[in-house]
């Protein structure tokens, strides 16, 4: 009987795992210049031999493979962070981009960009990530303090705090644009819309390092997160050290969102839409929700990035705009149906 949902959850995870490689290959093959399966395999074989002279190998190795991989990493991070944030707030509307964590991370990154503009590019990446981490962490702590007490989370306060932080970070970024030179303006606009086209080796290294870290660490909190959904004191009666759990989760979410913001800008709603759809399939048990969300997030952003390149060639629709177009109607329908999903009233 209660094996029912867990065996279904395992099937969902298996299917999502199986879809990763096809999505990656599609992402690499499709674009302004579409590659046939033969060309794709040839290019991959060339790359393995270290030969990047052919046009196909150049497209695959320098452009499409890195950005598709970055999309997968950011999708994994954002979906995991969304699922964990929702568990932490005990509220399925608590998406990092809605409650201001993404905004706080953007603000942190923007400040670093102003202050550290003359630094070299590699150093810049590290500094911007650190700034985004600190901004994101400050935002989660602030929103949590404002919106949550022993009786639960106030949805209204949580979303309002998110609006405030997002507005503040928007103003700061505008100020930055006002002062920026051409090169910085390009960085900023890329980052505001959310895009994967600046994927190079250092970016990929950072993205996959953090993805691997989060995928290893966060599932260990699955049972404690399940207990936390019962309520904070109930979780502590079940032997969970709640204060420590919250500190850890805040730090991991800030790290994930911060790195994703630093690398690919604001990609909204992935952390809301993915865990929610997975919850409909597997139920809210974090032991299945976390891995399934990670896989589905990777899949969604790989497909979204591919779609972004195909929608209006040769121009690219920034992927952040695409996820917002998908996510906003979804969010509205969640707000409408809050009772049906067992959400507390605001």
């Amino acid at each position, binding site marked *: *009987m*209660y094996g*029912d*949902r867990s065996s279904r959850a395992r099937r969902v995870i298996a299917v999502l795992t199986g879809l990763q490689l096809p999505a990656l290959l599609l992402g690499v093959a499709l674009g302004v210049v579409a590659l046939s399966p033969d060309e794709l395999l040839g290019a991959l074989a060339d790359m393995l031999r270290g030969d990047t002279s052919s046009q196909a190998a150049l497209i695959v190795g320098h452009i499409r493979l890195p950005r598709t991989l970055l999309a997968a990493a950011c999708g994994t991070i954002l979906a995991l962070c969304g699922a964990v944030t929702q568990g932490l707030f*005990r*509220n*399925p509307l608590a998406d990092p981009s809605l409650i201001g964590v993404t905004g706080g991370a953007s603000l942190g990154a923007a400040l670093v960009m102003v202050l550290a503009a003359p630094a070299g590019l590699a150093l810049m990446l590290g500094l911007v990530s650190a700034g985004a981490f600190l901004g994101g962490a400050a935002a989660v702590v602030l929103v949590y303090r404002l919106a949550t007490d022993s*009786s*639960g989370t106030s949805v209204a306060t949580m979303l309002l705090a998110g609006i405030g932080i997002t507005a503040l970070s928007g103003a700061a970024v505008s100020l930055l644009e006002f002062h920026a030179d051409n090169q910085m303006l390009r960085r900023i606009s890329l980052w505001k819309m959310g895009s994967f086209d600046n994927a190079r080796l250092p970016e990929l290294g950072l993205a996959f390092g953090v993805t691997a870290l989060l995928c290893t660490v966060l599932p260990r909190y699955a*049972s404690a997160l*399940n*207990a936390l*959904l*019962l*309520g904070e*004191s*109930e979780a*502590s*009666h*079940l*032997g*969970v*050290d709640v204060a420590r759990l919250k500190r850890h989760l805040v730090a991991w979410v800030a790290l994930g969102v911060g790195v994703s913001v630093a690398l690919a800008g604001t990609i909204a709603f992935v952390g809301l839409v993915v865990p929610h759809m997975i*919850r409909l399939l597997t*139920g*809210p*048990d974090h032991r299945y929700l976390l891995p399934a969300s990670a896989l589905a997030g990777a899949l969604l952003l790989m497909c979204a990035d591919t779609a972004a390149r195909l929608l209006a060639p040769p121009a690219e629709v920034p992927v952040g705009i695409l996820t917002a177009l998908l996510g906003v109607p979804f969010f509205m329908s969640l707000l409408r149906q809050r009772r049906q*999903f*067992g*959400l*507390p009233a605001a």
Partner: protein
Amino acid sequence: MTTLALHDASAGWGACPVLTGISLRCKAGDIVGLLGPNGAGKSTLLRLIAGDTDLLAGSAELGSKPLASWSSAARARCIAYLPQASSLTFPFTVSEVVALGRLPHAGGRQCDMTLVEWALAATDTQPIANRLYPLLSGGEKQRVQLARVLCQLETDASGGSLDGKLLLLDEPTAALDLRHQQDLVALLRQLAGRGCTVLVALHDINLLSSLCHRVMVVDRGHGIALGTPAEVFSADFLQSLYGTPLCVSTHPTGGYPLVFPQ
């Protein structure tokens, strides 16, 4: 064997104690009822023992160790606590909620499943095992939470002794119908028979009278009476406690005192 020993204990938040000078000693197999007007401090006493509230003065021992020296994990294997209300809004199924009670124990999947089945049967929640918790009625939710707490109480599926275990229940019958109230009484007697100590806060004074070996009356943060229901339930005492006219009679077959409004 003494499961719980409170001596002159005060508890509360910050500087102002909600409870002062509480002394209570419970053995294995005791069923002790907490009675008192709204806001008297019954829930705070349960929270003190569950580790939610700080001990401000006096001593509180669980087993033979001070309560504060227990790690939260060890305490969770020893104390199971059913709070008054729950705030779970995520769409877990009933059996998933009940299985959360197994979190403190590492008995293996088979043992956990056996105990979940047992707890579902014991609380008559088996027919709703696959329904989603947030869509249940208040009484059904209360029975599901009770099943979760029962699951937490058991170390393994052997059905052996529960010596040293402590079950804390805060208004467990508030939303239950008569049949499920009586089921709960039988269940608690059975657990006490296996050595479990039960501490239960109840407003239903007649249910308390039929169930408990001893009653502790709490008023404005003080323990003002402790004894068997027959010793404690005099009309004069209860009238002054609640400030409303009452009369006391005896149950025709059970022999325990019954209390009615006049």
